[in-house]
């Protein structure tokens, strides 16, 4: 079974096609940044991108993913942090940090399709990501400041960095 993850083709061998992408990432590929929180599409800790859309990897079976492009937190920023990751550090968002990979993947996907989102757009894009530690105030501040810093650079280029690194044969993991 072949999947394209963070720009690289990955051979998963003869994996149970029913295995959710979440567990293939974590247990088979060792990409542990994507987290298990609920397994039932309620918490968002497992959020990755399928093509450019944020999706719950606990709900996607690997059998349905052939030929699709998947980006995980490990592929979002390469050597440099993605502006959303940088904003997350600057605002010292994380407490335990367990939800934050999912939060960042949702936020980065939002900014890719809506570079200057309204508060309502931020709220609806982030409503599916739970944070038990309650870091929502800082998440909103970080999304807004990432939007500002993205406005100053070519966001198309940043958004494509994972793909580009893979195309260059760069280390995507």
């Amino acid at each position, binding site marked *: 079974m072949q999947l394209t993850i963070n720009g690289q083709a990955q051979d998963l061998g003869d994996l*149970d096609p*029913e*295995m*959710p992408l979440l*567990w*293939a990432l*974590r*247990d*088979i590929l*060792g*990409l*542990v*940044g*994507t*987290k*298990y*929180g*609920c*397994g*039932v599409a*309620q*918490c968002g*800790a497992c959020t990755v991108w399928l093509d450019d859309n944020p999706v719950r990897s606990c709900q996607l079976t690997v059998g349905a993913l052939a030929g699709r492009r998947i980006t*995980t*937190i*490990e592929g979002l*920023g390469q050597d440099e*942090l993605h502006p959303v*990751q940088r904003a*997350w*550090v*600057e605002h*010292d*968002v*994380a*407490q*335990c*940090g*367990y*939800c*934050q*990979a999912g939060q*960042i993947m949702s936020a980065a996907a939002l900014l890719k399709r809506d570079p200057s989102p309204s508060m309502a757009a931020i*709220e*609806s894009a*982030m*409503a*599916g*990501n*739970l*944070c*038990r*530690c*309650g*870091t*929502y*105030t*800082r*998440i*909103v501040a970080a999304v807004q400041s990432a939007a500002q810093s993205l406005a100053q650079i070519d966001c198309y280029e940043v958004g494509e960095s994972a793909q580009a690194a893979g195309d260059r044969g760069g280390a995507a993991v």
Partner: protein
Amino acid sequence: MTLGEFSTVNRRDFIRWSGFGLAVTGQGLYMVAMAQPAPEGELNPYIVIHEDGRVLISAPNPDVGQGVNTSLPMIVAEELDADWASVEVIAAPVDPQRYGAQFAGGSLSVRNRWNELRTMGATAREMLLRAAAASWQLPREQLTTEPGQVVHGATGRRASFGELAALAAQQPVPGEGEVTLKDSAEYRLLGNRVVNAAAEDIVRGHSLFGIDVVVPDMVYATYVKCPQPGGTPSSANLDAVKNLPGVLDAFLIKGDAVPPVFDLRNSTHVAGGVAIVATNTWAAFKARRSLQVQWDTAGASRDDSAAIESQAVKAMEQVQGDRELVRTGDPDRAFASAASVLSAQYLTEFISHAQLEPQGCVAHVSGDRAEVWTSSQTPGFAQITLGKLLDLPAGNIRVHQVRGGGGFGRRLSNEYVREAALISQRVGKPVKLQWMREDDMAFDFYRAPTYYRLEGALSDQGELVAWRNHVVSASADGDKANYGAGYRNKDFPDRVLANVHVTQSLVHSVTPTGAWRAPESNVYAFAEQSFLHELALAANRDHREFLMTTLGEDKWYEDGNLGRLHTGRARAVIEAVTRAAGWGRALPENRGLGLGFYFSHAGHVAEVAEVSVDERKGVTVHKVWAAADLGQIVNLSGAENQFQGSVVDGLSALANQRISIREGAVQQRNFDQYDLLRLPQRPDISVTFLSSDFPPSGAGEPALPPLAPAVCNAVFAACGQRIRSLPISRQGFRIV
């Protein structure tokens, strides 16, 4: 045991340990600045300074999101005068001989380690100064430090800590009287905003958490327990399960035929169940669909949460309970002669911790040795109780502390460590045990339901002159209250008022309960502070003024003891928060302000909520102001984050969280049946820390208790409906 006992352990260990270190001066046993990291087996230092200037500081306590991986090393760095940019934080190994009691609980990490860590930093700084004095042939008194450097003011000569490290390591360890600690006015780091030491690893998704641990040759396991705590497996279709793809083994673990209790130091309890071991997590989870188990429920819980509540409500009809806990003054006479008496019943339900990382553990038991990787909040107790269970000396058990995805008290117990160890022992390989979210929700040590009948006596001047509290507590043994269900001595109002009567009755419940962020305080504050609001209104007085007056004269209830109420500090935070919130200002219809104050975990905290309530009982929490006196703030960003989180967490818990139990089994299974607050529901939050010369206290818990009464009092101000039970969804309210 209570979390308070931890502090005794810590203090005793510290004295023994630092005494030991000081006795062996020159070896740097308790305080070493070295050119290279300590080799394996050598006593581990808090501080290692590399020649290239990097300063490694060990964080001794588990971090589950409370930020002690940053705040504790900051304390060392401050006194060392290290340049924070060159500091690397490493998790200390679990070793009580070297690090004393290593735990995360009771908001005690900073409070307990304050003196120890300052001394660590200052001692290393002194050794660096002496090294420079020796190498420059100058009197030590003429030298001082700037971040990362020793400086001779007169000549401007300077050397970096890295250059001096090797020589500093050879200096005798200074004795207790030879080290001076900084005055708070000299702080360069403490009180500032410092980004969490793990922030970059977190945003990059690096392997950090318990669930991320991988060791060579590891297999994966899930553990299916009886839905009724205390049930044990009598048989299961193990052969069928073993034949499933990816499954390596399946077997019964008999377990203990009684529900567990929250006994952190002693409990070796293992719940009976079926272990499924597989080549990956998913294969193990999937195999559960085919598993059929027959349970023996002779010793299992038959609790019914609705029945427990109706018995408790019946018990609350009595003004006084079956036994007396506190009697001060002459409450009976005070009530008999009062101008008016107010009475109300408050109650809360079972709730779950729902930390975002479900429990799990990696364990490897082989022969007479065991090694575990765990996000436990009490790794020291993991070692002790695992030793008892496996009948191994503690020295044969190695515990690695790994970052936890949320704690809130859930990781104080170590049953997941014991389960992983038993499974590993049986299969003879390292095992990663992973609980499903459904396991996590079904097998918690829940926040206990609580029931308080409160009575207040008012004089004809509208003063509060007497107080009664009839506490109805869930109890498994018919004698003691279950954890979190009882009553703890309180300074306010119990010691402030002249006439107080506290009594208790028990109702039977064996559902396991434990510490849930600010245990007891988080529920009692709701009752107490809401009822004080009711009393203020009954007395026709402003709530703020009533609270300020009732607090009485400025007084510290025990001089020097941070754990006791200081009414001057209390009044100052109420003053600050009401000023910030514009207390008393005119508000539109259906909008209200509510106030709550609570003292817990050595923190004086007051909060004001501004809410509006629509005609469908939708509550919008517009803003919450918090003001606190936590003494010296260590990391402003971290402390503020804990406060913001406590506000969200408090709202989350009061909105619609409840665990219901039928025939012993928990009914809620996952987040679709157990609501956590979501981002669009968050309020604006403003946090003020009063500057204070008191030593620091922890920030993880004390902001939680005042939140529920502030919000519920605001709801009353907005719509005139009093909320006396949580969650507020019981009365049809919801947070929008």
